[in-house]
């Protein structure tokens, strides 16, 4: 599949709303057949970017090509080949699940059987329930059913799992992986790092309308220089530790601190922690918290912007 044209190609894509620059000239290439993730905090410009690619928002500048086609000339052909789940669409409340899917099926000249799609998204039981009676996760699955029913080549999912419990989230991941396994291309926006790490071959991290990092999740994490993160906090009133002292500990790659909280990145935490304890003991300060975890895209975002992806 490496010879296939990219599924999506954007150049200097830009959009502003009055005095807000929503998207500030971004370039993206999404290879055919892969899952591409757009990550970023609220207001980063993910939805605006995706909707420009979907032909729903007119860009102020730049070019978009989807499946080698462009919106000015090939709008109808393109819509036949893409499936879309917008961030927060409330479909008709008083229609049955099966009626909604059938409605969307009727728009496409080719597509899946409605009952088959009900099985794919596991809504068979809710076939005859009104949309207004569905749970959040069931609604999301219905939205994805509507996106899948036209048998698209490319699927756009804008925060498909926001607000879902872990089990519903995993159900959706299965559906996306199934679609990918048949050669489909997926563009996904999300706040959840573990989702991007699990599903996406490549991710673009966005902030303030710009792409601030681009690569595979593994590459991006590796760019932190080490794949473990050690976080600790000192008791109230403890004198602050110079960053240079921490950076000098064996195996520490990077140091950041925010008041009494410190974050170290390291390849081998089991070497760093004993040395850290010795250093604290020598200075007579007590540690009140200690956490270690595998470095993730969350840590990448933190190290790039100094902010957390999600305010929790």
């Amino acid at each position, binding site marked *: 599949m490496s010879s296939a044209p990219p599924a999506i190609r954007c150049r200097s894509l830009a959009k502003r709303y009055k005095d807000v620059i929503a998207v500030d000239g971004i370039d993206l290439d999404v290879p055919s057949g892969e899952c591409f993730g757009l990550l970023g905090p609220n207001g980063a410009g993910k939805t605006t970017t995706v909707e420009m690619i979907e*032909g729903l*928002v007119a860009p102020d500048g730049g070019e978009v090509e989807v499946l080698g086609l462009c919106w000015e000339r090939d709008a109808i052909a393109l*819509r036949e080949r893409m499936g*879309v789940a*917008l961030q927060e669409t409330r479909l008709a409340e008083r229609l049955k699940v099966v*009626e*909604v899917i059938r409605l*969307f099926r*009727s728009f*496409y000249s080719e597509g899946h059987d409605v009952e088959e799609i009900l099985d794919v998204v596991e809504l068979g039981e809710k076939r005859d329930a009104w949309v207004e009676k569905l749970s959040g996760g069931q609604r999301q699955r219905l939205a994805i059913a509507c996106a899948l029913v036209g048998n698209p080549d490319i699927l756009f999912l804008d925060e498909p799992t926001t607000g879902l419990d872990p089990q519903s989230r995993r159900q959706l991941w299965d559906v996306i992986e199934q679609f990918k396994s048949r050669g489909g291309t997926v563009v996904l926006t999300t706040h959840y790092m573990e989702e991007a790490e699990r599903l996406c071959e490549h991710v673009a991290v966005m902030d303030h309308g710009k792409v601030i990092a681009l690569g595979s999740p593994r590459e991006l994490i590796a760019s932190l220089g080490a794949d473990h993160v050690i976080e600790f906090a000192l008791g109230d009133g403890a004198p602050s530790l110079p960053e240079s002292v921490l950076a000098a500990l064996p195996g520490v790659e990077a140091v950041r601190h925010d008041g009494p909280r410190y974050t170290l990145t390291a390849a081998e935490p089991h070497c760093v922690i004993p040395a850290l304890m010795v250093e604290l003991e020598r200075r007579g300060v007590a540690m009140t918290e200690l956490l270690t975890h595998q470095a993730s895209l969350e840590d990448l975002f933190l190290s790039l912007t100094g902010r957390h992806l999600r305010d929790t």
Partner: protein
Amino acid sequence: MSGSLRRYLDPLRELTLARFREQLRQPEVLFWVFAFPVLLALALGLAFRNRPAETIHVAVESGPGAEALLDDLQATGGFAASVVSPEVAQEELRTGQVALVVVPGDSLVYRFDPTRSDSRLARLATDNALQRAEGREDVRVTRDRLVTQRGARYIDFLIPGLLGLNLMSTGMWGCGYSVVDARRRKLMKRLLASPMRRSQYLLSFISARLILLLPEVVVLLGFAAAVFGVPVRGSVLSLGVVALLGAMCFAGMGLLTASRAQTAEAVSGLMNLVMLPMWVLSGVFFSSSRFPAAMQPFIRALPLTALNDALRGVMIEGASLGALAVPLAICALWGGASFALALRVFRWH
């Protein structure tokens, strides 16, 4: 060709069905479309039913000759008269308990308010009764033949007006409100991301309106025929054409009204702004000819006035479609222009 036509009609049918189902599944819609006009017809039909010929209430001021006048009136029949003091008579006239005060004397004095039509009637009837009692002879022999005609009663006038009003409200609300709702929920945006054509979306409002039209007309007219014996003098086909044109006209106006609005509040305000003047001016509850002549050209040009005229033409006068060309053309013009303009200014996001 037939394949591509089917490709066009399939989504249109599904969209129409979806709209139709959504409406049927909302009890409040059913109430406003079916129950409300029937209840209104019932209430107004009862309030303004034709009463038996009314008694005329007259006060005779006390004084010499008052009792004789009272006897004359009571002998004639049809009067409720009594002798009272001048002050009481004055009070009864002012509060509307009597229509006329008779002041006895050498020449009789009738005291009444000439702007009250019941008083003018009382003046004529009382004078007639008293003159005859004193021996006036009629110059010419006359006879009365009493008829109360179906088709000339208030309810016969009212029902076509209510039908027109209902076609207006269901058309405007049915199309306008759901457009804004779909826009607000981003359902419209989602539909646009699919290969659905914009024309299919807009046409589905018109076709869903058509499905609802038949039961809507049948329920109201069926009720009016069964309970009040309201006739349809013209052909059912003509009535169908007029109702269809009216429904289309207001569906177009509903789409236009909702073409830019983003919130339910905004669209409700606009709808009321468009519909309220027609509620009052377009001859729903009383004839629009009561408004001053200077306003008539404007009132005639309103779509609801035209629709009501056409409906009354068919139902009361049994007019043919040809005779109704002017009001029908006015409806068609409003509908066509609204739809065309709505297409141009429609906000799809």
